[in-house]
């Protein structure tokens, strides 16, 4: 399997606070990698370091064989290849659903408007956003719809890698499902993804690898069955069992 992204000894400080303490991570082409861990463990910071929204203080990131942390790399070019989906959707508030998807295609990929609209329409349909919603503004869409538009905005750019930062945690449970279904479909199509999420059912079904992070370090990683059902480290076991408990309560409430 080919390595698409390699993070080597990533450190990040916010002032005096040491947020990432030497992260090493390999992501293979076509794999779905799920990161779990308590809040404040540095998951979001790590994700933002990978597309250089945050500049790491030490360490290197090799994307497709190129060290993107060294100077001289056009970071805007790299970001075209790495899609990002945010916890709070972050759709452009002044643009309609379809224009949100079209913007990057026209301004970054330099497509003609007709071509961009065609690509955008296809992306929107693939995440289940039907034509009646295309000309709505973000504020007029539900959270689940907004997040699916955000995913369409990212995948329409045809990225090599998709980073998703807790894509469902701002959503009501019933809206979570529609977003998770979209992500499962992407995973089946072998889109390379790194997803920060606490949806254990989803991780079990879709992840190739699960990483448990705590206090700025990777505690344990491995296939989902191992990390979620039979972890080696005590800390992982504690965290996963707590998540399992929440997951069970959640399911009981829904039934």
């Amino acid at each position, binding site marked *: 399997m080919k390595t698409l992204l390699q993070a080597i000894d990533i450190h990040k400080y916010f002032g005096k606070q040491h947020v990432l303490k030497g992260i090493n991570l390999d992501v293979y082409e076509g794999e779905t990698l799920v990161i779990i861990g308590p809040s404040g463990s540095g998951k979001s910071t790590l994700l*933002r370091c990978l*597309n250089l*929204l945050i500049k790491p203080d030490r360490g290197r990131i090799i994307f497709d064989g190129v060290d993107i942390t060294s100077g001289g790399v056009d970071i*805007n*070019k*790299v*970001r*075209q290849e*790495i*899609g*990002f989906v*945010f916890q*709070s959707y*972050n*759709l*452009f*508030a*002044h643009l309609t659903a379809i224009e949100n998807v079209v*913007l*990057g295609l026209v*301004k*970054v990929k330099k497509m003609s408007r007709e071509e961009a609209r065609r690509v955008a329409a296809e992306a929107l349909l693939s995440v289940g956003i039907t034509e009646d919603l295309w000309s709505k*503004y*973000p*504020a*007029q869409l539900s959270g689940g719809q907004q997040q699916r538009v*955000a995913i369409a*905005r*990212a995948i329409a*750019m045809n990225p090599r890698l998709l980073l998703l930062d807790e894509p469902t945690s701002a959503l009501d449970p019933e809206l979570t499902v529609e977003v998770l279904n979209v992500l499962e479909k992407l995973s089946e199509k072998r889109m390379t993804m790194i997803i920060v999420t606490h949806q254990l059912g989803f991780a079990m079904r879709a992840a190739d690898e699960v990483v448990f992070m705590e206090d700025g370090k990777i505690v344990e990683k491995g296939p989902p069955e191992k990390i979620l059902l039979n972890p080696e480290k005590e800390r992982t076991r504690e965290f996963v069992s707590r998540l399992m408990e929440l997951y069970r309560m959640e399911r009981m409430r829904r039934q």
Partner: protein
Amino acid sequence: MSEVVNIFASYAPELLNALILTLEVTFLSFAIGLAGGVAIAISRASTPKPIKILITAFVELVRGTPMVVQLFFIYYALPSIGIKLDPFTASVFAMGLNSAVYQSEYWRTAIGSIPKTQWEAAYSLGLSTFGVLANVVLPQALRIAIPLLSNELIYLLKFSSIAYFVALPELVYTGKWIASKTFAYIEIYTIIAIFYIVITMILSEILVRLEKKLSIPGITIKRI
């Protein structure tokens, strides 16, 4: 009353010219202020420190002095270093500069109110900083700044009258000239005041409609 009608009838061409001059000065200086204001707001946020300090000093200099002083400086003091401007250009330039400083504050507030997450989302698509500003941040900031920009335009309309001091025949100057010929001070100044009141009302109406037309659900416009 017949006096008013008489004056109005016999000086109609002069009044019309004056009105056009007033509007020209107002809109031209607003345009200069708009371009300059956005430029100042952006460069105050992103340029290296020494330049930032210079710009801040300039902003405080303009905000701390009357517009008349600025106009006199440009019209009377600049010729001593070889820059001679005619009354119209000097007025437009002085007011445009003044407006740029005030508009930069409005734009700074508006740009600052766009969440950081919008920048992140735009950068993640691969847009450059300029691309993010032009396509994501400024279009949203514009909608937040519109009420403030409307006030600014109406303020400029009023303050175009300081061009009187450099003998530009705009409304107030023309009014004074007619008054000195007819001695009908109250009448002519009332006519001029009505000009300003009516233009202000028309402009306000247009601007409110523009604001409505540009409004987008979810982008809140703070009323002041």
